[in-house]
């Protein structure tokens, strides 16, 4: 049940207090009586009130003086006051001095209906305030709890990152040994081993390498999925060229990579974008028919503040029914004997793109090459900038 509304009634005449009690007899009100300003002050210190009904003319401290103290005290400053006065004309100027809506006055003898309705208005106001207060309190508590939960989660994520990193680190060390020793056996003792032994050793080495690739890619995926993601303006054309310059399979003696000039800058995380481009370019040159020289065309298309980057290849293509699951973790469409891979690369691409507010997709058919696209937010609104002008904008923003 709602707690009752406390109302303090102050009058030096006990019979006036009885009148007030009679008029305001209501189960939702709790009336507290005070027969002097001093008594009223004690009551105000002891508990909280929704309303003060105050006789002005009292021996000792007057109602006006009491009201002044009430308004000065921070805890009670906002408690509304209804003055009761038998000498309206004399007290009027003092009452007007208050000027605020939280103060009202009534003539004595009191009109019961008017008093009840005025008190009801203040009571209603008090209930509303109490409600707002409660909602506010609940909100504050919720915000605080949420902040605490977020901090905990952030800590947990950080711990998990350190954990998964050291786990992967520890998992990779024995694999390096496995691979290293089988390679050494082949290299240093190959002459004394028969053909089968060499084949088995190579298989050990390949398996170790494959496991190492898997761990490396899972690590890259978790990094993209969890790490902090500050977005900055990135020169995509330059970044694609940089990526193409690093990977052996993307070198000019291995493949033709053609990047359209003057691609607009995008709002992205550079490290994540390196993962996106290296995976898309790596796939584009990897999945070609035997003996075909890989050819990749990268071009941009501007769509509503986004840059849609197309990666078009001359590879083996992908059947339509596989397009949906292509970007899922561990999806492989080819035997590892034909094309090596962990099935994680495109999952990294999609996760990275979505964390940068972008999307990815593919348009492909077997035998007709693949056209992968990634859609990224452009770094600035104006799209008519020339390549040169864009570069200077970029330089300034660094």
């Amino acid at each position: 049940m709602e707690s009752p509304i406390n109302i303090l009634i102050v009058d030096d005449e006990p019979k006036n207090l009885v009148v007030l009690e009679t008029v305001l007899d209501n189960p939702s009100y709790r009336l507290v009586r005070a027969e002097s300003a001093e008594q009223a002050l004690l009551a105000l210190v002891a508990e909280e009130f929704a309303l003060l009904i105050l006789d002005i003319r009292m021996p000792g401290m007057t109602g006006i003086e009491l009201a002044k103290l009430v308004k000065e005290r921070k805890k009670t400053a906002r408690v509304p006051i209804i003055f009761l006065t038998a000498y309206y004309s004399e007290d009027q100027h003092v009452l007007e001095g208050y000027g605020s809506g939280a103060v009202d006055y009534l003539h004595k003898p009191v009109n019961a209906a008017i008093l009840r309705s005025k008190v009801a208005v203040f009571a209603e106001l008090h209930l509303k305030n109490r409600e707002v207060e409660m909602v506010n309190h609940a909100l504050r508590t919720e915000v605080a709890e949420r902040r605490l939960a977020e901090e905990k989660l952030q800590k947990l994520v950080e711990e998990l990152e350190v954990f998964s990193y050291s786990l992967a680190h520890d998992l990779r060390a024995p694999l390096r040994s496995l691979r290293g020793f089988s390679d050494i056996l082949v290299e240093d003792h190959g002459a004394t081993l028969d053909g089968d032994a060499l084949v088995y050793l190579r298989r050990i080495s390949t398996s170790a390498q494959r496991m190492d690739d898997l761990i490396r890619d899972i690590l890259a995926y978790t990094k993209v999925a969890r790490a902090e993601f500050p977005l900055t303006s990135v020169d995509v054309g330059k970044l694609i060229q940089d990526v193409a310059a690093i990977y052996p399979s993307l070198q000019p003696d291995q493949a033709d990579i053609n990047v359209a000039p003057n691609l607009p800058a995008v709002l992205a995380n550079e490290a994540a974008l390196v993962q996106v481009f290296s995976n898309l370019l790596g796939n584009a040159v990897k999945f070609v028919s035997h003996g075909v020289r890989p050819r990749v065309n990268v071009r941009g298309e501007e769509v509503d503040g986004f840059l849609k980057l197309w990666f078009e290849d001359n590879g083996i293509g992908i059947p339509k029914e596989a397009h949906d699951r292509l970007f899922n973790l561990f999806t492989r469409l080819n035997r590892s004997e034909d094309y090596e891979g962990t099935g994680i690369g495109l999952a990294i691409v999609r996760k990275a793109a979505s964390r940068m507010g972008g999307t990815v997709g593919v348009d492909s058919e077997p035998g007709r090459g693949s056209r992968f696209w990634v859609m990224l937010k452009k770094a600035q609104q104006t799209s008519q900038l020339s390549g040169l002008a864009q570069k200077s904008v970029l330089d300034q923003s660094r």
Partner: protein
Amino acid sequence: MSDTILLVEDRADDVLFMKRAFTKARVPYDLKVVNGGRQAIDYLSGEGIYSDRHSYPLPKLVFLDLSLPDVSGFEVLQWIRKGQPALKDMVIVVLTSSDLTSDIQRAYDLGANSFLSKPSEPAKLTDMVREVIGHWLSGPDRQQGSVHRAS
């Protein structure tokens, strides 16, 4: 007597790989090995058995792993670069399986000359040893402070 290179490495397999790489690379350096950070500091400061500089000469170059059981590679790096003026010309090559950007940055900040990832193939390790020694220890005009990274 040939010059010395010190390997700070706790993994026995990696020590074996490095020893083989030194043999294969035919570099004119003697490889000494310590298995932890504490031992590395003892060696470099000539504590205990390491006071015998005939058997344990000060190295020209240190291959330093980062994750070591007792005193970490970072701490060793810091100890060498802060307050060991006698070792200021000694080349420190961090050789680790970490490729965390933060680790790389921290290693360079603490004064590492080079940061290399442990290659997974023995043949690549041999090439790396040859390259590192050729780069840092050949001729009087050694290139100081340049960044050199293996793939």
